[in-house]
């Protein structure tokens, strides 16, 4: 093992949590770990807000008639759900929380390259979130999270400018994070930490950061133009002002499709960590998985037009986007197979994070394959803007990104808080989320092919049964999320003290104490081995029997 493994456990030592507990020291912290925690608190609150809207939407759709709320209210509910969940929860979720916390430790750095920029990122993000909430308090916005012109710029009677400003401002937080990570990964790696020794989570973060840096400015200027068109009537989108509303869609999706990968790529990174750790085996085809992250990042910028097959764009352009969208599916498929085969001849331990990871494989496979329907031009003409699309992107963003986030949160929870979460409850939550999720969103695929358009406040009677199933599933799903929140909060106080390496995992973050000291390591680690360098342990008739560890036994059952 490397020199880093000689770092001794320091149970009573100063760590980043107890070093200085005044509010001021938290609010002015430049420690990436504390900033990660600050982000976690903010996005959890935003998730709660977005989740409440989701439940209200499902409650309204319990009956075909638009009877619970007025249609205007409903329109605001799904808009605020989308805006909050995408811009204020999903995009920062894994990068700004888990990435912020783990990435510098994983590469053996004391901090990110620009700690103050990192803190600024959180403040900017919070300011954006407050603007978003302000739009909500002022009555809510009713444009849909896509802010399509000319509705958003000229017709809506809601505080669009404030909401758009919120997204604009939060975009800078995203740029700051991405920029910081790229520089950090390039310049801050510990001696011996070559590119091909980087944990795959770091590779995924790198690819994500590229998208953040290259894509976000485009959506920023686009939304700025919407605000200007709305406020000053200087417009380049409104046809009444000589503009082209479809140009907005091009500019918007040029960012917002890659943004999907901002949400899912970090999830894929988490997956690689979880699968390797709980299979006790190096990820199968490490290089394929690493480079496929980059391939996804690059290809993600070339597929935006698949959101516009029915917008009236040129037929041939649509076909180009269609074939490129088919291509972008391949690197994702490669990852799925690689993760699955990693378990071959491994020692699979079904702790909660691994259950979440296996759930991810299932849900993301369905989410990815249903993307094939939507990338196929002729099929998309029928499915575009129906519940099929809603189901597809929830499979990717909830089934993929959020499940991975939860898996990662459980996995690194002991490291972040110094406490173990209660394992049986963790397993239960993984199960509840998985079942609830499928019940919520699978019926929506069927509804979509039947032709139910999205963003509908009321719908024909014959589709009620499927909608009731979906709403019932949403209740289960919500219970799963609440369960997670409850026991994680509980564990902060009552959870068992976490050892430095509760999972017997490789990776530098497990070689420092839980929680880590303020500067991450007591001495600078030097890396001498590949990532996921688990010892090869044979169980039956293999010679090194004595090296066999009892992973299967609930050795770290601290609940």
């Amino acid at each position, binding site marked *: 093992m490397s020199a880093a493994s000689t770092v001794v456990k320091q149970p009573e030592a100063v760590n980043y949590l107890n070093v200085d507990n005044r509010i001021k020291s938290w609010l002015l912290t*430049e*420690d990436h770990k504390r900033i990660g925690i600050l982000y976690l608190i903010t996005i959890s609150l935003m998730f709660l807000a977005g989740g409440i809207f989701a439940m209200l939407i499902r409650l309204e759709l319990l009956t075909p008639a638009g009877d619970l709320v007025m249609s205007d209210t409903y329109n605001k509910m799904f808009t605020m759900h989308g805006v909050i969940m995408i811009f204020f929860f999903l995009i920062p979720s894994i990068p700004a929380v888990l990435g912020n916390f783990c990435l510098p430790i994983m590469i053996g*750095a*004391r*901090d*990110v*390259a*620009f*700690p103050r*920029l990192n803190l600024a990122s959180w403040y900017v993000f919070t300011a954006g979130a407050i603007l978003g909430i302000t739009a909500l308090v002022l009555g809510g916005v009713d444009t849909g999270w896509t802010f399509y012109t000319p509705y958003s710029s000229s017709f809506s009677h809601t505080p669009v400018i404030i909401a758009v400003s919120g997204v604009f401002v939060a975009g800078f937080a995203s*740029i700051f994070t991405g*920029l*910081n990570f*790229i*520089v950090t990964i*390039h*310049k*801050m790696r510990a001696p011996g930490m070559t590119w091909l020794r980087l944990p795959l989570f770091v590779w995924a973060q790198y690819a994500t950061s590229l998208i953040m*840096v*290259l*894509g*976000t*400015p*485009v959506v*920023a*200027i*686009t939304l700025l*133009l919407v605000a*200007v068109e709305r406020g*000053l*009537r*200087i*417009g*380049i989108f409104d046809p009444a*002002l*000589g*503009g*082209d509303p479809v*140009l907005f869609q091009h*500019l918007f999706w040029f960012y917002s499709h890659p943004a999907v990968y901002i949400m899912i790529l970090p999830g894929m990174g988490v997956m690689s960590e979880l699968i390797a750790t709980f299979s006790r085996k190096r990820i199968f085809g490490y290089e394929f998985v690493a480079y496929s992250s980059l391939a996804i990042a690059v290809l993600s910028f070339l597929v935006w037009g698949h959101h516009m097959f029915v917008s009236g764009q040129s037929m041939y352009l649509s076909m180009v986007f269609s074939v490129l969208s088919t291509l972008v599916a391949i690197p994702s498929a490669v990852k799925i197979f690689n993760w699955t085969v990693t378990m071959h001849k491994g020692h699979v331990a079904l702790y909660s994070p691994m259950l979440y990871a296996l759930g991810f494989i299932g849900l993301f496979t369905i989410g990815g394959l249903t993307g094939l329907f939507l990338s196929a031009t002729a099929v998309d003409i029928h499915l575009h803007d129906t519940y099929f699309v809603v189901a597809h992107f929830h499979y990717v963003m909830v089934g993929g990104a959020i499940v991975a986030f939860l898996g990662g949160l459980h996995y690194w929870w002991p490291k972040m808080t110094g406490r173990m979460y209660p394992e049986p409850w963790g397993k239960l939550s993984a199960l509840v989320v998985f079942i609830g999720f499928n019940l919520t969103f699978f019926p929506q695929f069927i509804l979509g092919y039947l032709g139910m358009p999205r963003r509908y406040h009321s719908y024909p009677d014959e589709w009620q049964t499927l909608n009731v199933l979906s709403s019932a599933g949403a209740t289960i799903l919500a219970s799963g999320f609440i369960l997670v929140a409850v026991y994680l909060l509980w564990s902060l106080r009552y959870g068992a003290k976490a050892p430095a390496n509760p999972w017997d995992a490789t990776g530098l973050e497990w070689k420092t104490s839980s929680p880590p000291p*303020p*500067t991450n390591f007591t001495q600078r680690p030097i890396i001498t081995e590949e990532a996921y360098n688990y010892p090869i342990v044979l169980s039956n008739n293999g010679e090194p029997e004595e090296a066999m560890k009892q992973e299967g036994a609930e050795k770290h059952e601290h609940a």
Partner: protein
Amino acid sequence: MSTHEGDMYVGHQFEDAEQQLDSYSIGMWLFLVTEVLFFGGLFLAYIIYRTRYTQAFVAAHHELDWRLGGLNTVILITSSLTMALAVRAAVLNRMKAVLGWLGLTLLCASGFMVVKYVEYSAKFEHHLFPGPKFEFQHAGVDSGQAQMFFNLYFAMTGLHGAHVLIGMITMMVLAIRLWLMRKQRVDFIPIELTGLYWHFVDLVWIFLFPLFYLVGGN
């Protein structure tokens, strides 16, 4: 937080000054990439509408005074030179020279903004600011299409002007900080980064000037 004592300019997260300098350089270049993409959306819109409304763009651009635009181009290029000299002086640790060149750069930037102000107010007087009061009479040109020219003109030069303003504020803060720490060695990194930013702002204008003031009309 442990800081490396002895070398006051190296942040606690860095191993040495070289790593720090590299990081700041890469960071700044990345930031400029985001800026390129930020303006990129507007340039794309410009290309699309200029292709569609060629005639109107040619007619409308005659309302801009290329001499004022040219003057501003000269001013900005000069400021780029003075900025480069400020960076050089900083590397050579010549405090007074740094402050002097920075001052000159600020002066140029202010000159640019004054010319800009003159141009903008003329447009307002002639009802060329887009909106309900917009008036553009020219035979064979649809006034809506001409308005698109001015939409883009104000959006792009406005955004550029905002960047100039931000650059000016940055330089002022920098100059004050340098003055306060005039007894110490010049920390050249912030000056170099500001210089990079300023050259970028200059470069954007080099594109904007021909696109708006010298629209090829035959």
